[in-house]
């Protein structure tokens, strides 16, 4: 499914590369002991190091390195045993040191590969150029005062992973799928919470266009800090369209940094190449190079959970799920964990069906996430057990589920309390069948005359008499025996 922009002169294709900034989950910052919690009062999580007081020195937080290595492994990438922190020099009020400590020539992770899942069930592989670690800057707050800018340094020094893709995506959908996949993996790994609203995951989007068939890269623009998948896709669409119009009008797209405005859905120029900083990178002399050993990497590898792709393949091959169902179930680690509990020792297809149709439907209606589900995975499993051993019928199961969803109760307790156990005693069912036939002689005759539809009507009658508890198969069989339908 290719995404082509029809111009007057050419058909145009988009080329997209993404730089995702993912905030590392860690209790303290990359080079200081300050806390990292989101939403704290301004400037309450700032150490002498974060504020760049004279003589202060960074000390690497080893946990952050482990997180980056883990993420690299999750992205099927190569871990560099030798990597270096460098200084990226520029002045800004929320950058206390006057430089950002980042990785430049020797990043910790290179050459990754990510499989993205498209809506139509197809997959594509997107190359990842590198993952490097860096410090976040603080926050400048311009809208509190007409004349002054306030600075909050809580975020200054928090560890980010910058994950840089190759310019290998060609539609907003692919870019969206890529971000969702990265998000899924870092959440599985618990290396980033993937929360785009709080800014713990944000993307810079590089976009260029070229006539279909051309293989070289045309001038790109970089759109900064897009904070949702939807905005990113909008920004790409807008930017690609804008560039096509510029080229087709005989103009030239300028290499620029642009900002996305969520209100208008447009991008606008922030600075041109001529205004670009010369960052004067050089190795940070306060820090030693990071030197890892293979056994260190192997130890981290051993702690890795099963990742979405592997899980998806297992669910398809071992449990016979469809690609679509498997995709839906593995995308979020919490959903996958929930499903695995429900499906354990049970029919996986039935479990998948209940989770995807019944549970998701109910959660969507209640505007709840999986973690807030009133029905625990254990209880949903118990419900499936009651269904499987014919304690309740499928119809009753749906009623029980509704009660579970509103009360959070154990299904066995609900069945017991409401007397919903399926009647499997043939004698009791036969009595109800006989009664129904006796009460409705005309309809009985119709069935005997060969009207198959009427037998369904009789099943309804019997179920009514048994408050739905009769085993439908048994009812059907008895009716057919007695009415010869």
């Amino acid at each position, binding site marked *: 499914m290719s995404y082509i922009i029809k111009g007057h002169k050419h058909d145009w294709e988009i080329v997209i590369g993404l730089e995702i900034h993912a905030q590392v989950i860690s209790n303290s910052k990359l080079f200081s002991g300050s806390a990292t919690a989101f939403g704290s009062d301004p400037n309450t999580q700032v150490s*002498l190091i974060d*504020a*760049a*007081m*004279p*003589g*202060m*020195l*960074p*000390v*690497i937080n080893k946990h952050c390195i482990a997180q980056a290595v883990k993420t690299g492994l999750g992205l099927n990438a190569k871990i560099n045993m030798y990597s270096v922190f460098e*200084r990226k*020099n520029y*002045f*800004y*009020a929320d950058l*206390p*040191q*006057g*430089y950002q400590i980042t990785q430049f020539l020797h990043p910790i992770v290179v050459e990754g590969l990510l499989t993205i899942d498209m809506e139509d069930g197809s997959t594509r592989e997107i190359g990842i150029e590198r993952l490097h670690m860096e410090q976040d800057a603080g926050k400048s707050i311009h809208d509190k005062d007409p004349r002054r*800018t306030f*600075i909050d340094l809580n975020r200054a020094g928090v560890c980010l992973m910058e994950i840089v893709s190759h310019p290998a995506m060609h539609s907003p959908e692919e870019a969206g799928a890529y971000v969702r996949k990265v998000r899924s993996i870092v959440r599985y790994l618990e290396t980033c919470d993937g929360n785009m609203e709080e800014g713990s995951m944000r993307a810079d989007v590089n976009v260029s266009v070229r006539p279909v068939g051309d293989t070289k890269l045309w001038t790109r623009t970089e759109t900064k800090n897009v904070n949702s998948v939807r905005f990113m896709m909008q920004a790409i669409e807008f930017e690609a369209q804008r560039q096509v119009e510029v080229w087709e009008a005989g103009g030239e797209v300028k290499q620029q940094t642009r900002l996305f405005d969520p209100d208008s859905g447009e991008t606008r120029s922030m600075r041109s190449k001529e205004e670009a900083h*010369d960052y*004067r*990178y*050089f190795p940070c*002399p*306060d*820090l*030693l190079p990071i030197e890892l050993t293979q056994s260190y990497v192997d130890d981290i590898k051993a702690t890795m959970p099963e990742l979405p792709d592997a899980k998806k393949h297992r669910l398809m091959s071992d449990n016979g799920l469809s690609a679509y169902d498997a995709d839906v179930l593995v995308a979020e680690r919490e959903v996958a964990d929930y499903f695995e509990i429900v499906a354990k020792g049970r029919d996986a297809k039935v479990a998948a069906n209940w989770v995807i149709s019944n549970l998701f439907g109910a959660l969507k209606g209640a505007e709840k996430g999986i973690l807030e589900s009133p029905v625990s995975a254990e209880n949903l499993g118990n419900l499936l057990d009651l269904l499987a051993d014919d304690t309740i019928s499928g119809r009753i199961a749906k009623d029980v589920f509704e009660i579970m969803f509103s009360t959070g109760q154990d299904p066995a307790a609900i069945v017991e309390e409401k007397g919903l156990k399926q009647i499997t005693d043939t004698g009791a069912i036969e009595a109800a069948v006989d009664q129904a036939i006796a009460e409705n002689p005309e309809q009985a005759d119709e069935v005997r005359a060969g009207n198959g539809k009427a037998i369904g009507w009789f099943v309804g009658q019997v179920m009514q008499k048994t408050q739905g508890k009769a085993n439908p198969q048994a009812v059907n069989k008895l009716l057919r025996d007695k009415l010869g339908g």
Partner: protein
Amino acid sequence: MPPVASRLILLFRKWSNKMTKPNELTIADARDALTKGDLSAVELTTSCIQAMDGAQDLNAFITETPELSLERAAQSDARIAKKESRGALEGIPIAVKDLYCTEGVLTTAASHILDGFVPPYESTVTENLRNAGSVMTGKTNLDEFAMGSANVTSHYGPVKNPWKLDDGKDRVPGGSSGGSAAAVAAHLSLGAIGTDTGGSIRQPASFCGIVGMKPTYGRCSRWGTVAFASSLDQAGPMTKTVRDAAIMLQGMAGHDVKDSTSVPMVVPDFEAAITGDVRGLKVGIPKEYVIDGALEEISEIWKKGAEMLRDAGAEIIDITLPHTKYALPAYYIIAPAEASSNLSRYDGVRYGLRVEGDSLDEMYANTRGEGFGDEVKRRILIGAYVLSAGYYDAYYVKAQQVRSRIAEDFNTAFQDVDVILTPTAPSTAFAIGEKMDDPIVMYMNDVFTVPASMAGLPCISVPGGLGDDGLPLGLHLISKPFDEQTLFRAADVLERQANFTAQPKGWEINR
């Protein structure tokens, strides 16, 4: 060395003759007197404070801390009385270069841009010294951000060398640790701490006729010391004797988890390494340190130094350090590069000077324009230039390659010798105002000290004698990484052989 007791008797005889005041003691002697109870820390500190009062003209201190030092001296006396002495430095007055952040005490780096900056924290080195019982007498003057070789770039004015000649001109004390050197030479404190990036301890020690020692890079923590060039900066003692330097370094050194470049090694007993015996010690004389146009007196003192060590039983060996001539130019790329980045934090946003402007960029320009002096600006510009796109490979990368070659030169040389002897500085102290027109002439002051800095090696300047003009000249010893013990042993013997007893002339200590 004569037994301590007989030396003390001599010492007290001097006192009784009003010859020697407590502030004129060495650290080792003061330690013994304090331990014996012949002297109190308060008396000793008071004597230093009086000397400082009489030495205002030297401008050696930016901030004097008499109340604080008397308070700490009293605490030392109390500990000594309770037999809870913290060791060799208990009660010893030490002057601190104003590059070390000191809790609650103004810290300026001799720069306008740090106006009013009072750190809420204490640097690791000064903390270590405090924990060892020493008493800080004040914060000494220096070249702005330690950039200079004459202590003339300080926002607080130049420091005068206590050594004077009859020509009426004031001499520079060297730099950047000029205030510390002058303070020790004029007996304003028993010892001082300096910092050395390319020679900032050793060259002023040479100019002021004292001992100045730079340990191996990584031996002392840099935490809390205002950074100039991070990969070169190292703390070190400035003292009257080699033994005192060993005692002081003991109180300063040690691994610090807050500095990733400090080395997790046990600190050996430096004073114990001073045995007075250099028989069989191999001393290298690098031929590349013979410089075209060098002063005759420099080659003379160097030759004399080698003879003195030979006389004491050392073996003198000619060696080669082929890349020496590239050290200074490479240093003046790497140090400014790091400095240009290190000094970015002085932006008027959070502390120190702020000069308002109509925009953020204008505030930066105004603040840094007014806050930094010319030499600092020059180095920031050089540093930014050599790091900029298109020049980085030609300058910075090349300079780092040179640096590796220099370290290799030393490694190779140290396969054959234990220490290397060179002159410390290319001249005696020059007059304030000289060598100011051409920065390169000023940079040449570091020509003998920079190579060891580039290789991170321990090194020391010991007074070797007087130049033709009657001003002191130092001799410079370099040893293997983390072999400060051999360095102290050799330096002590050199010191004895040189028997440098001259005191600043024309400078009258407040007796």
